[in-house]
């Protein structure tokens, strides 16, 4: 699609039939290391809890062995939670990488597309009006997120979508929706306000297979799409005129990217609440680890899964008497790392 006449240094050409792309050795190494670390964290995390299981036994159970009790604990109790953490992290980080690239703004995250705030309003409304036990919370979150994102897109449309206008409209819509959330929180009984606050911080506690299946199905479709759009993303990071002259049909390409980003974020937020920080910080970390001019989608997804699963492990194990929501731990773990990268880096990174 975007013919690169000069191959940048440090990148290798990969061909598959008529498709070809360049891959940097650094991102392959980072991605592989990230995958290995994620697998290790997942295995350790499955073993941790009131019924401790050694990592070797965990692997054994996952491969089909193990005792009856071990199988119950691993497969029915802990695996759904770990999988939710992994999938939510991957979805949010990929969504953030897409959003940051096409808006050309390092501060952008799916928040500016309206998804997170819309989902929050849906969920908080249900919690306050119908009580937290209601099974409608994820559905309300999903519906709220999609409605708000559609609203943002339609309001930002003016003979096409412009990234600059989209983020500003997104902020405006997000603020209206957010004021709805504040209004509910101020009006609610303190018990409901406290429960809503728990949801608003993002949590994967209590996830079961009923939550994992739709999330996994969504990611199985959306992640490959997200990676496929990175070919056009490569062009979308430039000025509109440059993008067009590279042969990209601007509006369809942008719509595809926005749709993918919104769907990924909506799936994640409806499953676990807004674990917001991931979508913003992970693409920036991935960018600084891999180098290049824009956050890499696939590596972001891998590192997102790593961050959320590690944060979940920390959330479950550090404080024995009470559990922190995973959304808080991602910030406590991720923010210092980003700061360290920021201070240490001597490369000029723009996106």
């Amino acid at each position, binding site marked *: 699609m975007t013919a690169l006449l000069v191959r940048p240094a440090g990148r290798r050409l990969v061909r598959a039939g008529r498709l070809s792309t360049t891959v940097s050795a650094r991102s392959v190494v980072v991605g592989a290391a990230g995958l290995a670390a994620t697998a290790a964290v997942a295995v350790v995390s499955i073993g941790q809890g009131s019924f401790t299981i050694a990592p070797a036994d965990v692997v054994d159970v996952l491969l089909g062995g193990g005792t009856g009790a071990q199988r119950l604990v691993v497969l029915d109790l802990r695996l759904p939670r770990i999988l939710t953490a992994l999938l939510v992290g991957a979805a949010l980080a990929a969504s953030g990488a897409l959003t940051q690239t096409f808006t050309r703004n*390092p501060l952008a995250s799916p928040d500016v597309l309206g998804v997170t705030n819309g989902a929050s309003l849906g969920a908080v409304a249900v919690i306050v009006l119908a009580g937290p036990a209601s099974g409608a919370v994820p559905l309300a979150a999903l519906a709220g997120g999609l409605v708000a994102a559609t609203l943002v897109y339609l309001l930002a449309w003016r003979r096409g979508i412009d990234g600059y206008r989209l983020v500003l409209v997104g902020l405006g819509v997000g603020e209206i929706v957010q004021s709805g959330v504040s209004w509910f929180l101020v009006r609610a009984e303190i018990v409901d306000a406290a429960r809503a606050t728990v949801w608003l911080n993002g949590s994967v506690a209590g996830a079961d297979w009923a939550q994992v299946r739709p999330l996994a199905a969504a990611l199985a479709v959306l992640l490959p799409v997200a990676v496929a759009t990175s070919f056009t993303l490569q062009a979308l990071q430039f000025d509109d005129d440059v993008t067009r002259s590279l042969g990209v049909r601007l509006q369809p390409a942008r719509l595809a990217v926005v749709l993918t980003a919104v769907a990924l974020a909506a799936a994640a937020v409806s499953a676990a609440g807004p674990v917001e920080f991931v979508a913003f910080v992970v693409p920036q970390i991935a960018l600084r680890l891999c180098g290049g001019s824009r956050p890499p989608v696939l590596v972001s997804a891998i590192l997102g899964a790593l961050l959320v699963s590690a944060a979940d492990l920390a959330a479950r194990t550090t404080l024995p008497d009470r559990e922190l929501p995973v959304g808080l731990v991602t910030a406590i773990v991720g923010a210092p790392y980003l700061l360290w990268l920021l*201070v240490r880096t001597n490369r000029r990174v723009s996106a």
Partner: protein
Amino acid sequence: MAATLRPARPARSKRSGPRRGTALAALATAVAAAVVLSLAVGAQTLSPAEVWHAVVAPEPGAQATAIVRDLRLPRTILGLLVGLALGAAGALTQGHTRNPIADPGLLGISAGAAFAVVIGIQLGADALTGYVWFAFAGALLASVLVFGIAAGRQGGPTPVALALAGMAISSLLSAFTQSILLADDASLNVFRFWVVGSLSGRDTGVAAQVSPFIVAGLLLALFNAPALNALGLGEDVARALGQRVFAARAVGVAAIVLLTGAATAACGPIGFLGLVVPHAARALTGPDHRWLIPCSALAGAAVLLAADVLGRVVVRPAELQTGIVLAAVGAPFFIALVRRRRGVVKL
């Protein structure tokens, strides 16, 4: 002879002097109108004549005098100060981070203030006014940390570094804040009213406490404007033009901190105001910060006072928090502005 050596005067653009002057005058008028409304409208609406009397020739014991001088005047002065502060700080923040979605709280200020307020609640500081110094100290510490991190790296405090460091510190601090609140419903109960942002319930002392910081911040902001224009051309060009880049950034950040820190301390985080007002002002003035900063400050004051008045009227005799009104009324207006063809001047 000397005249012929001067460089040719650039062709007059659409946004040249007279138009910007008109915008400034119009905004000043709007602020004056908002002040009058803020003094007159409320649970008991007074006529402008009654307001005038109460301000100029107060009659001790008269009801109108009591309402205006004891209740509405302090609140109006506070709204005026905070609006000016957030409008100017918003323009500065967006200029220094070169990011249209940066709000004045971005540099850790709102999150730092919120964290300190929660600490204050834990330590038993009393009433909303007791949090002023906590909030201000928190804002100050957090933003010094952000600037230190951004400045400590190779390449100095570039716009991206400032924005990312601010975002990271903000997230970190709000994670701490939330973890305290999750464990303590009593604190959440106080905090949720602080965080929504409001002008009501602040006593007379608050405006007096924060006004020196806001005045100093406004002066620094105006002083910073020419340098910020040069920085907008890129740091290398700015350096070549003789700007001391680091000093300019430091002055700008100091102004942002003074203004936003004082405003947040007084009213809670009303960051949205500082986010949207500069975009509206930029549509009037263009990107020149020497005009943008004063216009943005005036627009901030007018909008904040108008939102506060509206909050008193819509659910009479109760009140809607200013922050909520701002979002509910200001955001649709902002979206309409952004949708106009030449509504937004890109940074």
